[in-house]
């Protein structure tokens, strides 16, 4: 993919490190937008270099700031611990070994009192991130496009039905990836689009036979 001038000069960020601070904030923010609805408690599990050199880079403050909904350029990141307490959010940090994941990775688990939702993501440099797992399902996307994620049953026709609905509403698919755990088991589709996907379209997608869940993450700008 072509490098944008704004990848080189940019992003606007809270220092000191694009990977350990800006990327961390973006990961927290993305995790919140995927599964942080009405949560009261959040666990942040740090892997590799996030765990080892994160302290000196404010990685914990940045991750938590992102979870509170702050962007990577929000100066409130510095005070995110105190702000979380004010908002009544309980948080904890611990180390974790996520195996072969990128050295700058984190697992974030949200609790809303009844259910949990978990995300694994990596900060891959220059503030760029990749989401690698949602609720135990391995997948991969960057959040640089409006992104639609489905959890569905692996059966013929689901991909075609989804793309038909999108085309009907004039939503262009930039990238499409399909992941599954095993044949005819649970699967996931990651669709990166050129246009935002409106709630009306999401409702239609949720109604497609075989689809269990639809998540949409718009651009953060």
């Amino acid at each position, binding site marked *: 993919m*072509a*490098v*944008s*001038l*704004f*990848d*080189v*000069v*940019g*992003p*606007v*960020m*809270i*220092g*000191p*490190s*694009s*990977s350990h*601070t*800006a990327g961390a904030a973006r990961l927290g923010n993305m995790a919140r937008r995927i599964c942080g609805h009405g949560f009261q408690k959040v666990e942040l599990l740090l892997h590799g270099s996030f765990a*080892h*050199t994160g*302290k*000196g*880079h*404010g990685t914990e*403050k940045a991750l938590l700031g992102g979870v509170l909904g702050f962007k990577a*350029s929000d*100066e409130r*990141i*510095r005070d995110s611990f105190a702000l979380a307490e004010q908002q009544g959010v309980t948080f904890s940090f611990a180390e974790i070994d996520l195996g072969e994941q990128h050295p700058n990775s984190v697992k974030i688990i949200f609790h809303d009192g009844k259910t949990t939702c978990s995300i694994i993501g990596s900060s891959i*440099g*220059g*503030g760029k991130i990749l989401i690698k797992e949602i609720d135990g399902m391995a997948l991969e996307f960057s959040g640089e496009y409006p992104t639609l994620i489905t959890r569905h049953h692996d059966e013929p026709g689901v991909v075609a039905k989804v793309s038909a609905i999108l085309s009907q509403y004039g939503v262009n698919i930039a990238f499409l990836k399909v992941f599954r755990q095993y044949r005819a088991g649970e699967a996931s589709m990651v669709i990166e689009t050129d246009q935002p996907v409106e709630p009306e379209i999401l409702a239609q997608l949720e109604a497609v036979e075989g689809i269990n869940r639809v998540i949409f993450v718009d651009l953060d700008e």
Partner: protein
Amino acid sequence: MYQFSTAQELLAMCEREKAGIAEVALRSEMEASGQAREYIWSRMEELYQVMQESIKNGLAPDRKTLGGLIGGNAYKLQQQMQKGCLSGQTVLKAASYALAVTEVNASMGKIIAAPTGGASGTLPGVIAAFIEDRKLGDEMAVQALLVGAAIGKIIASQATLSGAEGGCQAECGSAAAMAAAAVVYLAGGTAEMSVDAAAMALKGLLGLVCDPVAGLVEVPCSKRNAIGTAHAVLCADMALAGITSYIPFDEVVEAMSRVGRMMSPDLRETARGGCAATPTARAYVLKMNQLRTEQ
């Protein structure tokens, strides 16, 4: 029509369109993103505003950084500037601005990665100092940023801008190359001169290792950003004098990439080699760890 990933392609487009690097870079971004000229321009303008704010914030005498290894140096250099200086007014101003931005960066303040957080001082330092001292105005600053970004884009396409992958040559080396090309543009040099200045700047920092003390983005990062400003300006002067780089920019970038791959991981941001492995650095790490255990 305007997509480039090498300096050769960029210069050919400048020739074809009879336009400067800033204009070609702007058109390439419009084409790739599908956005209007005004949108790209105003985004770049906003980045310059934030750069100026971070310079202003970093000139305070009492800046506290995460590791406490730097802070207040930008202020000291500003004082020196008023006393009279060896390096020349504008260069010293650029260096003080670079220190300012990196001190803001190291204290969890707002900055623009240029191209990274660790190398965020050099480009804004050089551009802001020249814009001010030569009274060129913000419009020229945006054009200079476009020139710097075009150079960085070539390095990102052909090599890397990450210290973890390529060492400090990829961060501060790239920043100096971007700044050198930008300041040649501000001085009215040709596109070829900008690219030659960038080649000389990157060549001059080839092999520079990434060795942050305690893994913090403070020592030696902050002062390397300041040194990068003077380095960039000298390369720009050489290019403006008609001195060319014997090795073309694209080959220097390729060489930088290869040197980065040859570099031991100890010298690539892991804080295990170079300045990070000195007795003073180790004593600091020991002290910090003791403090943390006590907490």
